[in-house]
């Protein structure tokens, strides 16, 4: 596998990385900067893995590419957790609107990775560094909050369209 192929693979991952970054840091510029920092951090932290991939003659390195993908998600999660604390106040408008963005940081990450990224629990464990029990708990509370949100929204829509909830 050539280095250019790995570069292309990372570039093609950008929609997934951006979406995850935006879910955690709901600001387009911050999210895209987060992605760039994540790739830089990956190339420094995982240089042996990158070199191994680049020197592998065999083109079938699917598992190494998957490993790369999960590492990138993990770094995005770790970096955004630190930045979220610093930028929290600037997201208050988005979070006060309610909905998905009003969930707790870990709840958003777990729910997004499970429902939108379609990952398994052990993969989410690796990315978030949480235990299985913690992830199950985050998923449960996130789902309950989201279903309450729908009920509230339906009630609100009902009231708006003639007051019948």
């Amino acid at each position, binding site marked *: 596998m050539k*280095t250019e192929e790995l*570069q292309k693979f990372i570039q093609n991952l*950008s929609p997934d990385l951006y979406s995850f970054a935006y879910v955690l840091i709901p600001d387009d510029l911050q999210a895209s900067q987060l992605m760039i920092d994540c790739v830089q951090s990956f190339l420094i932290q995982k240089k042996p893995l990158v070199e191994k991939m680049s*020197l592998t003659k065999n083109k079938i390195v699917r598992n190494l590419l998957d490993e790369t993908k999960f590492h990138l998600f993990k770094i995005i999660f770790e970096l955004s957790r630190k930045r979220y604390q610093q930028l929290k106040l600037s997201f208050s408008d988005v979070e006060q609107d309610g909905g998905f963005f009003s969930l707790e940081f870990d709840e958003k990450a777990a729910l997004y990775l*499970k429902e939108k990224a379609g990952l398994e629990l052990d993969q989410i464990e690796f990315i978030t560094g949480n235990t299985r029990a913690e992830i199950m708990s985050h998923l*449960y509370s996130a789902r309950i909050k989201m279903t309450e949100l729908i009920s509230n929204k339906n009630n609100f829509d009902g009231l708006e369209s003639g007051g019948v909830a």
Partner: protein
Amino acid sequence: MPQEYSFNKNFSRQCVHTKNIYSLLDMPKQEEAYKRLNKHIESCAVCADELKKFQSKTLAAQAFIPKVMMARDLRQSFDREVGELFKIMDLNERELLKKNVKKGFRFIDSMGAGFLKNLGSKAMIKAYVLAALMFLALKFIL
């Protein structure tokens, strides 16, 4: 009285396992706990009903989980930055091969140095003395 009635009605509609059924959505199907709960649901109408309701609400809630699209200019900027990073990190194939060959030579050098060092070690000196004694003994006997 109406309150008591509603309590009794709710009580009759409860099952001790209902609080656990929500985990069915996220639990891997091959796990023992999943199989046990699933088996329970087949025979418990309350839990089956609750799970069905929760599943439909969760399904509806999925529409509220965003999958944000990346703007074209942001994507172009990301592609450019990644290209730059790969250049800076010296990740082209020739450089990596050179580095690997150097690493191989360093390994061989260290092996050679180790071999020479071992020739003068205490254990080897003992072995030389023992070999010399054996040689002399054999010469004397024969």
